[in-house]
């Protein structure tokens, strides 16, 4: 038998096989990443790179579930007005955030280094919404826009919601379909369909379904993501449990905000401390609403989104 070649010797010390590597993230994360990527607008040019601090989420590493369906999403060759993400071009670098208020410039101002300049939102012509300082010249093909469709934003939030949405417990395909249809009706989104992908299409066997909206096809797609139930002690679960009773009450926005802050604080969660006890609170005044709504999604941190009237 001949001696092994140097390349064969080297192959034997490979630290991990492809199969083992794929298991590091697990099938649920793999499926979530696929969905989250396809919800982003394709075709953007690569932004300039710069040194960045370690993502906040490193400290939230134990936050092991329910992450990706809240990720950025935009249309494949769809209309920018149908996206539920905003691309804030801070110093030429892309920071994609979930839209919350329907005013993309206002949403970006919240993440812009203070003091934020006057900002302007544009339809980038390829399905995305981009925000840059109003003093900067937009690229060719960009057209100014002022708003995004709040119903679409809320649809995605409700699907990702940890309080009552698909991330709040394990929904099987039937329950997830019913839930999605209820949300479409509630938000007045007419002519939409709910499509369920079977387990075999994603390689998942666990029965817990998550979902994402595809406005270009007027479709909510539901996919099995595996068992998303984390430990009861997981901060987002504890907060969601604490906030759930509020969804049964009819509160003004200020009252809802006060309740959320109190309950989060009692759980040791803060809006200022970066790390595992951090949450972000976004509130949007809408006097056409009778009662405030609250959604909790999990991404780089815990995001709590409130909408409601300024007074009871």
């Amino acid at each position, binding site marked *: 038998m001949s*001696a092994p070649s140097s390349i064969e*010797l*080297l192959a034997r010390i490979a630290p991990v*096989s492809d199969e083992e*590597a*794929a298991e590091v993230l697990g099938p649920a994360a793999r499926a*979530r*990443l696929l969905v989250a990527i396809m919800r982003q607008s394709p075709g953007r040019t*690569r932004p300039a790179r710069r040194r960045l601090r370690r993502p906040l989420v490193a400290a939230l590493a134990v936050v092991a579930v329910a992450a990706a369906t*809240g990720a950025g999403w935009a249309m494949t060759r769809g209309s920018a007005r149908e996206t539920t993400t905003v691309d804030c071009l801070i110093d030429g670098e892309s920071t994609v955030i979930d839209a919350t208020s329907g005013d993309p410039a206002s949403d970006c101002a919240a993440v812009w280094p203070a003091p934020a300049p006057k900002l302007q939102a544009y339809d980038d012509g390829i399905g995305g919404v981009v925000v840059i300082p109003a003093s900067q010249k937009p690229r060719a093909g960009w057209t100014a826009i002022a708003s995004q469709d709040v119903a679409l934003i809320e649809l995605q939030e409700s699907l990702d919601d940890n309080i009552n949405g698909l991330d709040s417990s394990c929904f099987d395909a039937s329950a997830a379909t019913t839930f999605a249809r209820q949300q479409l009706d509630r938000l007045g989104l007419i002519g939409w369909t709910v499509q369920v992908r079977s387990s075999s299409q994603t390689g998942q066997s666990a029965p817990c379904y998550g979902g994402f909206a595809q406005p270009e096809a007027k479709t909510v797609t539901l996919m099995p993501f595996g068992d998303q139930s984390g430990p009861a002690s997981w901060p987002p679960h504890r907060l969601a449990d604490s906030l759930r009773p509020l969804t049964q009450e009819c509160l003004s926005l200020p009252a809802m905000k006060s309740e959320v802050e109190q309950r989060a604080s009692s759980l040791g969660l803060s809006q200022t401390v970066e790390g595992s006890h951090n949450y972000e609170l976004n509130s949007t005044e809408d006097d056409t609403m009778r009662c405030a709504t609250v959604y909790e999604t999990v991404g780089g941190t815990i995001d709590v989104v409130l909408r409601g009237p300024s007074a009871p």
Partner: protein
Amino acid sequence: MTAAAKRERFELLYEELYESIAGYVLRRAANREDAAEAIAETFTTLWRRLDSCPAGEAARPWLYGVARRVLSNQRRGERRRNALAERLTSELEPSEAAPVVASGSDDRVARVFAALNEPDREILALIAWEGLTREELAVALGASRAVVRLRLHRARRRFEAALEHETGAEPAPAPARIRLPEGGERRECA
């Protein structure tokens, strides 16, 4: 390409290449968090640049090239804020360093490999661990075949010389962990 066709092609490539890219990245990244970020960044780039990704088998080395640049930027400390990467990282167990070599592997081979310069390690690992052919190496490294052939020849020579110097004898074999480039399984690209 229509939106549906684009989505379908991306899904096919993702399913076909996820394990390979995850393996490559995890074998090269400093830790699991960096690996998760690099995987997310690599496939996000594929999605955004799908029109640039070559058809057929050439897609695989092309994506290795993307992953290689992502890892390279990571090592230089240049990161983009990538919300997907953050979310993917959040799915991991608490930080754990990625293994440098297989546990129980031949220490002498590992020691010699670790002592090589980075370009040599990279090209040898792409051949031995990723199973790329020389043609695919040229695509992944963005270099001509002639340059790749020369770089590979020199890297291999330095590795073998160092092995000889280190061991003075043939190293003991360890269990194989990955397919070999010659005669091994080849993957079809979507």
